């Protein structure tokens, strides 16, 4: 897939998520993969990118169970959020679902799932992804 540099945005990242695609921006000059995608490569300052599919499986690096939540998430608490390292080393935070709270372990293998569009007052209308056990 090719696209103009201005398309390597967080907005476009979430549009891709809407289509159930996890993609990063790969710099055509130095090869660095950016997640979030950026308009300017922080490694070589190139503005030439291409979208690449990212692996949707990885391992859990760390996690927390949120009991006191901001207003938008109060009806979900307690919920788990972790940082997942994808197979290619890229890291991404996300909620972890479909596993009991006491069954979550650092190092466990997880797979990304794509959630529906979340209507949240005054927040952007982005979709959410989450992780569940592989």
């Amino acid at each position, binding site marked *: 897939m090719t696209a103009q540099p201005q398309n390597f945005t*967080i907005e476009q*990242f*979430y549009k891709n998520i809407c289509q159930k695609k996890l993609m990063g921006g790969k710099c055509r000059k130095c090869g660095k993969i950016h997640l*979030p995608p950026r308009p300017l490569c922080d490694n070589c300052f190139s503005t030439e990118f291409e979208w690449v599919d990212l692996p949707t499986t990885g391992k859990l*690096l*760390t*996690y*927390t*169970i*949120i*009991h*006191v*939540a*901001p*207003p*938008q*998430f*109060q009806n*979900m608490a*307690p*919920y788990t*959020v*972790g*940082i997942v390292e994808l197979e290619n080393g890229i*890291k*991404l*935070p*996300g*909620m972890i679902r479909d596993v009991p709270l006491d069954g979550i372990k*650092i190092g466990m293998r997880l797979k990304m799932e794509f959630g529906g569009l979340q209507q949240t007052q005054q*927040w952007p209308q*982005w979709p*959410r992804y*989450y992780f569940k056990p592989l």
Partner: protein
Amino acid sequence: MILFQGVWRKVKLKGKPLASIVSAGLSRFGKLEGLCAREIFAQAAKEAYERCPRLDPKKDIKALFIGHMGESYEHQGHTGAIAADWAGVLHIPATRTEAACSSSGVALRAAVYAVASGLCDVVMVGGVEKMTHRSTPEVTEFLAMAADFPFEQWHGLTFPGLYALIATAHMHRYGTTEAQLAHVAVKNHYNGSLNPKAHIQKEITLEQALSSRVIAWPLKLFDCSLITDGASCLILTRPELAKKYTDAPVHIIGSGQACDMIGLYEREELTSLKAAKLAAKQAYEMAGVKPEDIDVAEVHDCFTIAEIVAYEDLGFCKPGEGGRLAESGETSLKGRIPVNTSGGLKAKGHPVGATGTAQAYEIYLQLTGQAEKRQVADAEIGLSHNVGGSGATATVHIYKRG
């Protein structure tokens, strides 16, 4: 930053004072009902003026730098001009700095630039935040703005949640325990019980800390700092002018600042803050001192795990040993290196914009022998460590008794 770390500091500045604190003020910390941020800042300014009778604020103060994190709390921005006005020093250049919870650490750094460059002889620097009139969920949301919105806040992470991610990783990697975290809270509450300006002046037990309600596992209520109103300020001058204003100045001999990616998930390490390590390295090299030379330190204990990570990032112990250092009692008032003698963010309170210069205020009291019941004997060299967000900004300052 690499250039800055290397060249002019080592050659010209090793141990040479960059600026001197000649006075300092702190409002009471706590729930200051009915007071706006500007009115709270005036309390801090008043104490700084009273402490320095030789200072003529209207004539002498040439600039003001003020840390203030958020407009959301009071629907009020443009804090630079407001603070100058309410402190009675109108018409000078007044600049607000914002770097989340290190807003006034960054203001202090800016004030050091102003004085060390020779542009200003005397500057006022401080910070303020008014938070307690908002609900906890509202404050939770405002604070989360210092995280990465599209990937952290969007997926339900809060500030306790981000530091809980650090805590879980630290526990997994080094075997740090929930009891070791609780030791930090017990120590800081004891210190706060000796500080008449602290938000909470009450001791707690290890059992109380461990059995308090979960906020973001593994962090519990007593692992979290307080939502507080408060303000702090310092009067800085060029070192050669310090004795004109006071017989007991405190010199700033090291100043470090660095940044990192805003998203915790993007960083190389989850168990230390690179920005803090880099800021500390700059400050130590500039000051020509080592971690073992520090007699007293105020570190950014927004959560108990943050103090443990700070011990490691500042070189008070090796990576992974922070939990054991907390447990050992060596960072208590009578220990080898007393940390957070004021009660820290944990007990003194954390009015976010005010915190950086409030830490400097405590070090100023300690190095001038004015810390009363919590005085560290013969304290000569002090350090403050102020972190913004989950570590995207950090400042470290080193001070020496003049």
